[in-house]
């Protein structure tokens, strides 16, 4: 009996070993319970659906099947580190991690550097990580918080008919009283100096459920616009308080953390007209979303428990995350060949992404997210943000893709990178030498 058991397990091991030989493993550090579960379940659902879609449609990437394994982080840093350690060496080695959590990304940055596994921080994380010379394994793809803050101001410039008209205008930055909330203050200050508008920072103590006094202060200050740097429950609370003091919602602009259905629906009527930034558009009109629904959900292999969530903001963000991951693997395979690649090779792929209009057309994602072209020095690859307005039921685009004001962000990034490399006593990569 014992002998058979041993033989069977040995046989299973060899089978697993053979199967792994042509697999590319993608870790999924998801959060499906806890405070941010409603967003996490949809985001990682979208990402997994896209991986399955690639497997079903093309049999993987270049014949190499994509495999994945989930690990629950609960959006907590220590659990995230545990998941990182659990998945990093599994099934031939992790391709890249996308934690969708700034805290976990910070906590795994040194480890990732050492293990040579890239971290995707799409839309969040350290803004200065877009400098690939200092952050070789961190990729704030598409847009960072800083890029998005400059885009917000430029969007307001468009609203008033040109950046020169911002002069003398009054803008309030209502921010979450946390490290996250304070992150954009220096960028906004620089923008205020550049365009001559008056900027007032008002803090909302975390978690941000109580904003009565802040909005009374805003009413007294009579600003033209309010920039909302909110998170979680702070967004609907801000919108409801704005309604109470009679501040027009169409003059409130949030960043992407305030731009999902969950944020707007929770505020009910008060959310109508409110505007938020976005790096991945919602909706089912994109061919890639329709194909996923047809192929993956048609075969009953969908990851979402409720098909109704297909096409929501967080789901589409997850799909975009999956697309960028797969495109990075594709790029890396072009250089290293169609086989199981390690984290460092995927890093090369992520550094050489080129999703132009033609490629977007092929993928069926035209206009879903901006074009992405990364390099050794530029790990962001885009910096574009688009703004959406909530009409009471759906998000509707109210602007084109707005590019970050690199004249403002780049000097700040340089200063931050210099400080970081000094604190860590490290030398910057020489990108010219790495061709």
């Amino acid at each position, binding site marked *: 009996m014992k002998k058979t058991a041993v033989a069977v397990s040995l046989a299973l091991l060899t089978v697993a070993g053979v199967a792994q030989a042509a697999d590319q493993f993608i870790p999924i550090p998801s959060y499906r319970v806890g405070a941010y579960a409603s967003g996490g379940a949809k985001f990682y659902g979208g990402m997994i659906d896209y991986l399955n879609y690639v497997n079903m449609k093309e049999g993987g990437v270049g014949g190499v099947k994509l495999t994945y394994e989930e690990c629950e982080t609960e959006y907590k840093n220590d659990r995230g580190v545990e998941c990182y*350690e659990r998945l990093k060496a599994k099934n031939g080695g992790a391709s890249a991690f996308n934690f969708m959590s700034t805290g976990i990304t910070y906590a795994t940055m040194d480890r990732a550097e050492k293990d040579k596994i890239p971290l995707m921080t799409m839309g969040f994380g350290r803004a200065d990580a877009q400098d690939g010379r200092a952050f070789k394994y961190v990729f704030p793809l598409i847009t960072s918080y800083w890029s998005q803050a400059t885009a917000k101001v430029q969007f307001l410039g468009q609203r008033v008919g040109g950046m020169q008209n911002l002069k003398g205008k009054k803008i309030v930055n209502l921010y979450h009283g946390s490290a996250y909330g304070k992150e954009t203050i220096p960028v906004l200050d620089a923008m205020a100096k550049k365009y001559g508008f008056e900027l007032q920072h008002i803090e909302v103590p975390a978690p941000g459920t109580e904003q009565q006094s802040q909005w009374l202060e805003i009413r007294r200050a009579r600003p033209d616009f309010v920039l909302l740097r909110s998170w979680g429950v702070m967004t609907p609370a801000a919108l409801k308080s704005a309604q109470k003091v009679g501040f027009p919602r169409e003059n409130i602009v949030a960043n992407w953390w305030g731009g999902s259905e969950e944020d707007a629906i929770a505020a009910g009527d008060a959310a109508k007209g409110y505007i938020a930034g976005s790096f991945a558009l919602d909706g089912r009109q994109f061919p890639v979303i329709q194909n996923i629904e047809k192929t993956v959900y048609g075969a009953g292999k969908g990851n979402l428990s409720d098909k109704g969530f297909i096409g929501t903001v967080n789901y589409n963000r997850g799909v975009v995350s999956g697309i960028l991951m797969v495109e990075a693997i594709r790029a890396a395979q072009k250089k290293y060949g169609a086989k199981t690649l390690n984290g460092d090779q995927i890093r090369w792929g992520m550094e050489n992404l080129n999703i132009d209009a033609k490629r977007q057309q092929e993928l069926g994602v035209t206009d879903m997210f901006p074009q992405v072209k990364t390099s050794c020095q530029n790990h962001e690859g885009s910096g574009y943000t688009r703004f959406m307005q909530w009409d009471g039921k759906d998000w509707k685009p109210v602007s084109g893709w707005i590019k970050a004001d690199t004249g403002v962000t780049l000097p700040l990034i340089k200063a931050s990178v210099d400080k970081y490399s000094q604190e860590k006593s490290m030398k910057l990569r020489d990108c010219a030498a790495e061709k």
Partner: protein
Amino acid sequence: MFYRESGQFKSSYAADSAILTIAQDRLFIAALLALAFVVLPGLGSDYLLSGILIPFLILSLAALGLNILTGYAGQLSLGSAAFMAVGAFATYNFMLRMPGMPLLLAIFLGGLMAALVGVAFGLPSLRIKGFYLAVATLAAQFFIEWVFTKFGWFTNYSSSGVISAPPMQVFGIAIDTPASKYLLTLSIVALMALAAKNMARASIGRAWMAIRDMDVAAEVIGIPMLRTKLLAFAISSFYCGVAGALYAFVLLGTVDAQAFDLHRSFQVLFMIIVGGVGSILGSFLGAAFIVLLPICLNLLGQAFHDTISTQFLANLEMMLFGGLIIFFLIVEPHGLARLWQIAKEKLRVWPFPH
């Protein structure tokens, strides 16, 4: 049968006051230490060491700190995470502003800073008791978290408010592999656990327990209330502070104030409630329960991920975890440490029932 002290005689006072009076216990602890110090660093995988054992040890230390204050001295506190934060940020600032300071000294000073802050917030304990004191320490929790977010100096004006650890070394040995980090943590935790055990057995521990059981009586028999209570706060906060520094430097390598929020304080409190209030061993058992069980459940859940929806599994894990906490509290309200003690008593008379 095997676990019996018959035939073991104590012939000196030293033998009588030893921590482990029974040879079998000594053997067991020696084997455990050998396993922890020699076998695990050599054979344990990176995942076992840095994903499981290091967080377990660090949170055990925090639980130990709280257990000194709440379990031994009877002062309910909801501010453990805040004291951890003080330790973490103080250590970071010592290392940043005094280049060349040894890591161990910085951690020690970080612990001292936490102790100072702990004493300040312990002052109300001289006037208020029980749940009211818990609310007073809650103020520490919110105040300290706010201070570290509000004043950029503590984070060296980092735009994101997150600090990251510089390269570490102890006595010229670089602390950069999972095994070396684990050994550093284990050494600190083992030493401090030994110190805690001895404090609990010494006069200071008795004074704490006297205050816990009835403070009026304790004062009548001549225990100085001010000194004893504040000492409990200081030592407890020192333990928490060191745990916080290790959490920031060894486990995560970076830290922001939000990592030490109220949830962390509750987590540490639950550890001592589940593990055993007023027990050194209980701190470790409680930490193991709270830290390791969710991970085990998640690992177990992954085995079924092909057949059951992951959404359902993730929630099922939480339900099981909650259910198990209730189960253990009903079976043994005095915590897992009490279960261990009962097991030892049963083992002593085994194979007889009584």
